[in-house]
């Protein structure tokens, strides 16, 4: 790897090690240098959720990119994935219990990978996004978000709930 300031630094899997500190904070050793606090950013949060992960220090300076989480050793991969889940709070919807319009709020009752939740939207045209394919991103009035990875792949009852809203 050259020290070129204008090039993207891609970490070799053997150069990185992630773990969790006693306080529950994500930390790691990069190129042999320990960092007590690290932050991870997805470069393509929609397209590549476990690839091209930008590792930054607490101040937000990029230290390098992990090309693919799966290349890392088990422990590091697990912590990195966990950290991604914390930082990118985007529960995946596993079931749509109901979509109701009550007066001018749309109330969604959902089962997600992180437990059941409820989303309220002021309208559908601004709070539902279709980033492509069959993906849907749902945003709550207060900014909470959930993701439907592929609405066609949901069970038939959930799809039934969605017929008139997608």
């Amino acid at each position, binding site marked *: 790897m050259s020290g070129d300031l204008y090039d993207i630094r891609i970490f070799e899997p053997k150069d990185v090690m992630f773990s969790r500190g*006693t306080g529950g904070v994500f930390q790691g050793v990069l190129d042999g240098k320990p960092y007590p606090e690290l932050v991870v950013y997805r470069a393509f949060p929609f397209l590549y959720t476990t690839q091209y992960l930008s590792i930054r220090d607490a101040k937000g300076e990029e230290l390098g990119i992990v090309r693919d989480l799966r290349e890392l050793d088990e422990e590091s991969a697990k912590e990195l994935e966990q950290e991604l889940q914390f*930082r990118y709070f985007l529960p995946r919807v596993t079931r749509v219990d109901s979509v109701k319009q009550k007066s001018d709020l749309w109330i969604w009752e959902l089962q997600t990978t992180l437990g059941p939740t409820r989303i309220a939207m002021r*309208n559908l*045209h601004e709070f539902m996004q279709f980033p492509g394919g069959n993906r849907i991103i749902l945003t*709550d*009035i*207060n*900014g909470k978000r959930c993701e439907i990875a592929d609405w066609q792949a949901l069970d038939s009852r959930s799809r039934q709930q969605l017929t*008139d809203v997608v």
Partner: protein
Amino acid sequence: MSIQPTLPEPIRARLSGEPLFSVKTDLSSDGRFGDLWFAVTDQEVTLWDADGEPSFRLDVTELSEARAVGGIGGGTLLADTAGGPVVIARYTAALSSAFGFAAKLITALAKQEELPAVSEKEFPRYCPSCGNPLAEGTQSCPICKSKGKVLFRMLRYAKPYKAQMAAAVVLLMLTTVIELVPPYLTKIMIDDVLQPKNTGSALLWVVLGLGLTSLVMSVMQTVRGLIGVWVGSKLMGDLRNDIYTALMRLSLAFFDRRQTSQFVGRINSDSESMRQFMTDGVIWVSGESLRVVAIFVIMFGLDWRLTLFALIPMPFMVLVSLTMWPKIGRRWYQQWRSIFRLNVLVGDSLQGIRVVKAFGQEQTEMSRYSTANRELVRNNIRIEGLWQGMFPLFSFVAGIGTLLIWYNGGSSVIRGDLQLGVLMALIAYLGMLFGPLQWVSQMINWASHALASADRVFEIMDTPSDVPDARDPHPIGTIRGDVVFERVSYGYEKHHPVLKDVNLKVKAGEMIGLVGHSGAGKSTFINLICRFYDTDEGRIAIDGTDLRSISQTDLRKQIGVVLQETFLFDGTIAENIAYSKPDATPEEIMRAAKIANAHDFIVRLPDGYDTRVGERGHRLSGGEKQRVSIARAIIHDPRILILDEATASVDTETERQIQEAISRLVKGRTTFAIAHRLSTLRNADRLVVLDKGKIVEVGTHEELLAIEGGAYRKLVDAQKELSKIKGVEG
């Protein structure tokens, strides 16, 4: 009344002291949904699980600082301790404000500083009666607000025209009554004229009667139609005006988050569907219901027993209407959303048509369009199909009633219990019921369409401006031009501050140069002076008066701005220059253009000042556009002049000329100038260096240059370096 749930008593009892702050977080520490109570006292920071058991505790003395680290869609509250950072709590985005505050509070506790005060707006707000979230800035809960309100509110638009609408309804009623005459005449014809073979003048009279009724009917229909058109057009005009006014009133933040070309379609289509319901809908409903009643009264009069057969299908139809109603509403909305997406797409690619062409992406745009278009076609078929299917269903069911009457009435006629004419009249009246029936399904359609539109329209009207005008604004007259920033923080996204704790005192007549890296917050700084956005914290004052208590019209009269993105309106150059001062004389326009160094090139154009610049001024070069907008900013002789990269697109020589002219103009005026080309700011009295939203250095060019390793010096060095490489002077 507080709409914030309070800490449960059992937990409160177990705290070490009075809670300074408490909030219910919505994530457990493993990142799953879960309700936990978070409470801070002056000694400890605690977290309690749903059963009221402690799940985390940290002594205030153990920590040095707390930070709310925002993620995407959520965040984490961290504490820095001697043993490294520790996670206190996790939360979703809904609570970022609350935990942002918590972090400040804990830090203040740890450092033993003055504690910040809690304000209601830190909390997400929930309706006290139904527990659903309240949108920012609204007071009434949308769920607890009934649909009826929307209907009444919509009908209020018809109020000014109630005389005309009443006339239309009366005319409709009369037509209805008259319409009921021909079947009756037919009955007379069959029973009293044709069957008895009556050869007198009776036949002629009956036929004349039929002719007369149809003449009267067409006259009345015409008049009613004209009234309908008149009221409808007026109504729609009012609606469009109101929507547009509502849009103009909204703050920039509203438009930042939305693609603007969508509103073009919305103003027109939403007002159209509301009009349709109010004129056609209301008039027809009142007219047609009367007709239904009248028909039944006559039919009952003719033969009540047979009439009862006609009523058999009614309950079924009511039931179907009620169950279909929500579905139709949803499908209309769905169809509307696909139109919306299509509009956004068209607006987007046409606004960027130059880029599209430059990269030869017409094909991509076309295929994007046809995908969205296919979606619209599909939804169109779904909604139209649904209600096209509904009417035949209704007719069929109602037809069953007719069949029953035919059968039972027919046998009565054969037995001689019933006159043939009566049966024929009954059948004819029943046939007339199909008219209103069709309107029932049409009405369901219109009403749900209109209610959905009204919802969206009122949503715009009800959106409070983020920068509301003060109730009784402070008259400022002509200002001197002192500008003071006091501890100003601002973020476009709450809790992602772009400007942090900015303090600056600017004396009237001073010229301030703002420098800093791209994205440092320079444009944001001046956006706040113009009050395009309100500060999140701290205040900005002009001549000692808080910006928020000055009426925006007064304020903007005192400010001239050249924004970083030059925008010219579709119109002539003269109109564009005189935009903020429509009564400017030609001389004033020329003088302003001269100062902006635009006069020469304008006069050389074949159409001079009358050249139409077209949408966004595409017919001018980048630098020409900038000069026109400089002229626009200085024409009304503002006390505060704001130049955001105003001369970035002109050559250095032209820039020098504009600068000289401006520096003459600038005398006695407060000026804020932003420039990346630092030489542009050589006339500035003071330079303010911004870095990542903070003021890092303030001083004259010389003072700042003298700071060894200073931010300004680095910028200057970098530029010198650059011009050396290029071999030219910057």
